[in-house]
């Protein structure tokens, strides 16, 4: 009994300080206004950050895209000149083509490899934990180091990849210099970092109720059939997520290719076949200080990403519907 009283006393004491801190008011402090003020206070870091580092940059970059600006002199308004120039710039065309080709190669391969690995892991029982860790390890490697590894392992003359291909009598191409093999090479290198997608798919696979798969098996469906008709539809949200996120990442690919094949003020460097959109944007902005032009490029990229994502969303809606039908039949 006495302990209860003591406890009560203690908490009342704490209450008094609490009220004192809030400048009195007690119960009133819990009024809607007080709640709102507190919520606002907790939100304030994000609100300030949003205003300064998202909202204002968005507006200002839209404005800059209509100007010529080299950081030293004031921006001069040029209307839609940058956009007109951009559509006529063969390098923008090249960068877009490179980026699209890279994306179209990378995303399906990435998803297929990640899915196969996840399906295997899901069958592995206890050893899955160990392999999951192994597959994720490359994700901890800085992209710069991945770019370096690309140069080393995919080296045309004596790289590891071509040496291994040589064992099978295949004469490997010059991955790091041949314009038609640079992008496939970079795609293959990027598969090394597939681990994060494997984790996401594995989590999704483990969420598929066993009963569903078991009943499909009892109904006479084979392993492949069960996977295609039961498992894949069940994890389609995760698959779709990986497609969308990877597409967006591919459209903005920069680190590995820039590390391996580009460098400021070095003419022996640079490879047109690996000139991806963000690399060209970066060069325009921070090497040539064409801030207006680069801002216009950024908005075009933004629009492109929105369009591509919207298309994917629309397509996915139809796919989900399709799955629903198939499950019902």
């Amino acid at each position, binding site marked *: 009994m006495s302990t209860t009283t003591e406890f009560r006393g203690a908490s009342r004491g704490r209450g008094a300080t*609490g009220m004192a801190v809030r400048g009195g008011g007690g119960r009133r402090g819990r009024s809607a206004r007080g709640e709102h003020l507190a919520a606002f206070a907790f939100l304030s870091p994000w609100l300030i950050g949003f205003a300064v580092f998202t909202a204002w940059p968005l507006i200002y970059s839209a404005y800059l895209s209509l100007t010529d600006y080299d950081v030293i002199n004031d921006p001069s308004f040029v209307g839609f000149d940058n956009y007109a120039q951009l559509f006529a710039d063969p390098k923008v065309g090249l960068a877009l083509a490179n980026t699209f080709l890279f994306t179209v190669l990378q995303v399906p391969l990435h998803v297929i490899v990640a899915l196969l690995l996840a399906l*295997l892991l899901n069958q592995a029982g206890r050893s899955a934990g160990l392999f999951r860790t192994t597959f994720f390890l490359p*994700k901890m490697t800085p992209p710069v180091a991945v770019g370096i590894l690309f140069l080393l392992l995919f080296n045309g003359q004596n790289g590891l990849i071509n040496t291994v291909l040589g064992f099978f009598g295949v004469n490997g191409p010059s991955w790091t210099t041949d314009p038609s093999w640079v992008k496939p090479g970079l795609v293959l290198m990027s598969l090394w970092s597939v681990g994060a997608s494997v984790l996401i798919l594995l989590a999704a696979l483990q*969420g598929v109720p066993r009963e569903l798969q078991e009943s499909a098996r009892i109904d006479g469906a084979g392993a492949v059939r069960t996977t295609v008709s039961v498992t894949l539809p069940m994890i389609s949200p995760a698959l779709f997520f990986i497609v969308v996120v990877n597409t967006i990442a591919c459209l903005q690919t920069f680190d590995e290719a820039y590390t391996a094949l580009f460098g400021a003020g070095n003419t022996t460097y640079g490879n047109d076949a690996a000139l991806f959109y963000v690399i060209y944007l970066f060069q325009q902005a921070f090497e040539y200080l064409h801030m207006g032009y680069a801002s216009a490029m950024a908005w075009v*990229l933004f629009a492109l990403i929105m369009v591509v994502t919207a298309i994917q969303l629309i397509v996915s809606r139809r796919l989900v519907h399709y799955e629903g039908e198939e499950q019902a039949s």
Partner: protein
Amino acid sequence: MTVRTPPGSHDVLRDPDEFGLDTQAVLTGIPRHRHPSRRTRTRRIVVASLLALLSIVFVYPFVWLVSASFKPRGDVFDNRLIPQTFTWDNYVKVWQEAPLGLWMLNTLIVTALAAATVTISSAMVAWAFSYYRFSGRGALFGLVLATMMLPGAVTMIPTFLIWNGLGLVGTLVPLWAQNIFGSAFYIFLLRQFMLALPRDLFDAARVDGAGHWRVFRSIALPLTKPALAVTAVFEVQAVWTDLMRALIYLRDSSTFTIPRGLKSLVDAFGFGGEWHWETVVTASVISTLPLIIVFFVFQRQILEGATMSGMKG
């Protein structure tokens, strides 16, 4: 309070919510490891052997790199697993050819500040979204999620102009200071976690007279520790490997972070330069190592965070 679940299922995300998350994976508590039959056991052995083979592909580049770092310049590309001539020279020489120690220190400073600030601020914002009820909360949270969709390229230039205007280009500040304002993904992650905490606890504390900050600081934060750890570790990985910002903001070699320094080594000693690949290789090993160690220490948090990133859709 938290029950450890088998790998793959995630205690961070326990509460389904209105944003259409695929929480099924998290919520189904179906036991994964029943007593396996002999057939399953044979299959598992086959699968495990296959996975072991595949693992070689994932591990070998590391092995190659480490092995090459112990070879003299002429042998770097010989693709031998065991160096023909084993040498420690590269590990002695690399510190003279590049200020690796300084780069490491810079990276450490940036990483520590970035991880600490983003964890605290994101937790505050997440707390506002999970505990308080205010008009426009859903819309505002939608806005937070929407910022995740924004390509970095769009805000990159004005952000550079802000730091340029403040005279901070060339310093380490732009590499971490934005984290003071929280980060959308972590806000999302922490909010999910906080939503699952027992609300009665906070209300009771409030009735007892605890102030808003005190409830957050002394009750909510300690309970959120697992998710805070995920946030911090994840940010360490992101900042440690960040190249773009370092390229934009750092000018002088003495201010370089590891990724920026490595890039400068490729420029100086790689194809663009003198072909001292053994230096590039050794520096790559040294700069990747800390992250690998972090990974093995915080494996659970990192894998959890990586899986969580698949739940934000």
